[in-house]
């Protein structure tokens, strides 16, 4: 009897959870948007994201979701759909709001977006904001990308040195960060 217990469990959980996964919860709806994003259906992404925001509220979604989620998909959906200004202003609302849980990610996405558009100084500005807000943990790829948008000439020597020092101080000096830390150190050596 014991050996059939797992079958019963699977059956019951399938019956219980299937309707939720299919889009009757925040997670399900965000998963739907993610699927549309992967399929590069930009119009569909924007529409589904708008619907999710309308159904559940912006705060409820963004406070509960991980770093790359609905706002990311909606912004890039708008961007690839041709609405660049809309995408930028959508992200700016989050990047300029100190209380927004998506602020850090929005700064990063804005720096990427501006870099894609060709506005290097705006990309630089948001990258510096991102690196300032970042606490040194997680965001491995993002921090390295953001750092490459930083323009030392726009910051000035002292501010650039201060930025490098602050990054070195807050990133844990462990093996997995050795590459990025080495890059920071060599930048520091260059300007001294």
């Amino acid at each position, binding site marked *: 009897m014991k050996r059939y217990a797992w079958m019963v469990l699977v059956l019951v959980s399938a019956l219980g959870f299937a309707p939720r996964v299919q889009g009757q919860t925040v997670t399900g709806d965000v998963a739907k948007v993610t699927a549309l994003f992967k399929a590069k259906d930009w119009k569909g992404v924007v529409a589904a994201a708008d619907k999710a925001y309308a159904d559940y509220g912006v705060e409820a979604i963004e406070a509960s979701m991980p770093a790359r989620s609905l706002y990311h998909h909606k912004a890039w959906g708008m961007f690839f759909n041709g609405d660049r200004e809309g995408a930028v202003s959508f992200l700016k609302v989050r990047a300029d709001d100190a209380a927004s849980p998506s602020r850090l990610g929005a700064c990063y996405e804005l720096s990427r977006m501006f870099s894609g558009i060709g506005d290097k100084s705006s990309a630089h500005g948001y990258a510096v904001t991102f690196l300032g807000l970042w606490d040194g943990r997680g965001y491995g790829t993002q921090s390295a990308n953001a750092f490459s948008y930083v323009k030392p000439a726009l910051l000035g020597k002292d501010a650039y040195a201060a930025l490098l020092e602050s990054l070195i*101080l807050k990133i844990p000096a462990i*093996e997995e960060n050795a590459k990025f830390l*080495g890059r*920071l150190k060599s930048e520091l050596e260059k300007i001294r």
Partner: protein
Amino acid sequence: MKRFAAYAATAAATFLSVASAAPVTNGAFPAGVRDAARAAVLTSSVDAATAAFRRIDWRGVRDPKTELATLAGELSSAKADAALIREIRTKLALLTPGAAAFRGGGLGVPVVEAGVLAVAVTEADVLPVPVAWASVLPVPVSLADVLPVPVRMFDPLGFPVVDAQVSRTAPLRVDQVGPVGFDEFRDAYAHWFRREYAVREAYFADGEQAVGRWGSRVWLLKRQLREVEGDTEYLDAAREYSRAAGVAAWRRDALKKRRGR
């Protein structure tokens, strides 16, 4: 225990105050940062100490290098966790122009230890060719009969084979009689090992063959053998099945015997 609890409470309280007070611009160090780090390091858990160090807010600290050096000195005199001290020293080296942060340089940052920035390898870390790899060494003919030739240490089912001949020509230490070398042997052996010999069927005490019942683990393992394609994987799967079947048969026998009592 009480002492540690007191330290932990102090650390928590000080961190709260540090977090709310940052950034501080006019002091050399935000109030309590060093105390907090010291208190946190004195708690019993190494992880907690490291986490506490990483949580320090350095914004507004006028001379972080001096603070780091002082902290490292205090921690090493208190015999704190070596990995944490190394992390602090690495940070110090990263901030010091000309100091080699990743190369065990002037600051005495050791390179190849567990949990260290092991990026560069120094001469001392380059080991000579291990003596155990005797097959790659030039072997004088006069010594050929006492040097280890490739030794078969395991049978196809993974059980060690150490006979008198082998132990005379290549004395094995106890710690070598383990899974060492089994993978290489298995990979080489799996190609010519015939599949039907890989499975060792289990038998009950009464001589009847032990067959896994439908849905049981033994049944599943036997069934999975059908889908295995690679020789090595087949050998592994066959070993797992053989052991599971053997254990199950032994267990049933033992239970029967016990009930019979």
